[in-house]
């Protein structure tokens, strides 16, 4: 080997500067994932992306293919087709998973090891140097400080899930994949998980969260991907998915002109004297006061005006039902 020339050094520095200036590759990027188990098409053409520092929720009914997608991302299941990149590396390279923490839906850890030994094993396998004190702190964060020396075989399901979370968090991950992280936890544990996810987000760690608890997803996620029958049924930020705002009004003495004014704002549904009006998506805060002013001017008596927003749950159910209706239509 000869010493690199001054020109070579400059070129290297320039290259390093250029690379440093590039935006970081997404934490997860996958395209066209497919998986078939026997005659069952579990996943069909799924593409998704989790940006660095983003918390993305994966939602969908049982059998939608959420866990299969997660396992394909982590190289635990071989996709029939499609590509996966983790933290900028192709997922086929095990090194891509060096900074990935994972809590499986089926969380089981070596029952003959103690909690501290399980953590030490995962640190060793990750190839990242994590001091023992940090490992203990990680267990303490999950409420396992008193049980570090106990065999995992004697843990309750909830304790094992807490241990699983510690395993996912211990090796300084840049991406954490949590598959149903609160399925065995009590309400306090669920709050802990929410705080942990928010803490990860504040540290710029990307999180992919698969959960049936839609309220939880709504609270912590920046973006949501809804899977149905192995396909992406919808995806976007919460504002994009829940963007449709509504207004509930209690009105009496409504003239035909006032009704027309109401209908001009958006789709109207009526239940007695209560009217629900969809607000335009491009509203900049003027639609509601203008509508109330016009209705009053047209002689309507306005008793109550309440803002309403559809919940993620309603949106999810709407998307799933629309999918089912479309399939029924196609099958006819």
């Amino acid at each position, binding site marked *: 080997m000869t010493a690199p020339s001054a020109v070579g050094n400059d070129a290297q520095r320039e290259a390093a500067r250029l690379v440093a200036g590039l935006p970081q590759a997404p934490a997860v990027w996958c395209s066209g994932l497919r998986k078939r188990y026997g005659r069952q098409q579990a996943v069909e053409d799924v593409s998704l992306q989790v940006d660095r520092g983003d918390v993305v929720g994966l939602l969908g009914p049982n059998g939608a293919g959420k866990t299969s997608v997660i396992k394909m991302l982590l190289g635990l299941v*071989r996709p029939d087709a499609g590509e996966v990149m983790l933290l900028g590396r192709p997922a086929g390279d095990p090194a891509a998973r060096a900074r990935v923490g994972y809590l499986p839906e089926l969380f089981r850890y070596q029952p003959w090891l103690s909690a501290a030994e399980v953590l030490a*094993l995962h640190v060793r396998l990750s190839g990242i140097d994590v001091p023992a004190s940090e490992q203990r702190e990680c267990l303490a964060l999950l409420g396992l400080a008193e049980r570090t020396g106990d065999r995992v075989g004697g843990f309750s399901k909830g304790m094992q899930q807490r241990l699983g979370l510690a395993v996912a968090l211990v090796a300084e991950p840049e991406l954490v994949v949590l598959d149903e992280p609160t399925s065995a936890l009590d309400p306090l544990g669920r709050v802990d998980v929410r705080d942990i996810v928010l803490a990860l987000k504040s540290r710029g760690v990307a999180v992919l969260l698969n959960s049936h608890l839609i309220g939880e997803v709504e609270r912590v996620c920046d973006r949501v991907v809804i899977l149905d029958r192995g396909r992406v049924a919808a995806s976007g930020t919460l504002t994009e998915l829940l963007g449709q705002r509504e207004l509930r009004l209690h009105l009496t003495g409504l003239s035909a002109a006032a009704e027309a004014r109401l209908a001009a704002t958006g789709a109207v549904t009526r239940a007695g004297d209560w009217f629900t009006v969809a607000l335009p998506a491009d509203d900049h805060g003027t639609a509601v006061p203008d509508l109330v002013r016009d209705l009053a001017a047209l002689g309507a008596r306005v008793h109550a005006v309440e803002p309403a927003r559809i919940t993620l749950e309603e949106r999810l159910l709407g998307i799933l039902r629309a999918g089912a209706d479309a399939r029924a239509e196609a099958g006819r």
Partner: protein
Amino acid sequence: MTVLTIAALTLREASRRRVLLALTVLTVVLIALSGWGFSRVAAESGGSALTSGEARLTASILLNLVMFGFSLIAALGTAFLAGPTLAGETESGIALAVLARPIRRSAFLLGKWLGLVAFGSGFVVLAGLAQCLVVRATVDYWPPQPVAALALLAAQTTVLLTLAVLLSTAISPMASGVVAVGLFCTTWVAGVVGGIGASLGNDAVARVGTVSRMLLPTDGLWRGAMNAFQDPTALAVFGGSDGEAFPFLSAAPLTLTYLAWAAVWVALVWAVAAAAFVRKDL
């Protein structure tokens, strides 16, 4: 690095599971019983009821018989350890978190296999050595090639657990143990049948043993181990070629070609197991 971590983990699993306790109890019982048996043999032959040749023959046969017991215990122990440690971990989900780490599945499998080899070989070598010492103390018999004999016993265990590892990539933990031990016993019986065929001069029956020894080298290696344990004159005392029909004496030492085949067999079966495990959906 990964390989050694997983191998150490497998050894720790073996030492912490009940399988080690069960193996230790069985071994101690077998050694104690054989010690008592050998001391009776010594007492009976003390009154010169047996010639020195007959005494050595008896010692050889009994030693081979007890060693067969150990190889059976090792076979049961490793086959039923290989199942839970591989198929069991993939079934229960323990493997999910481990294999999501930045490690290659082939390295994981190699680590498991090495751990099992170290455990199984360690067991047969220690138990076999203890047995040899008991025999020496009771009837003053020392096998002609104890190192080769114990190494061949370890090789036999390695062959069987490699088969169990292959089976456990495809079938359930318990089934892989049962099938591996079943095949081990079948090959042994086929070897005995082949030996009878050889002593009767029936080539077709003799071929049963030869073919089974090629398909699964456990019996071939076991016969090599017996040959190294037994007194060289024992076979002549027993009656020359008739000895071949006797399951606890071996007519000839192993050839280098056969040892090479056993090594190739292990490599091939391991490669198939690795290929199956790498493709497995967890």
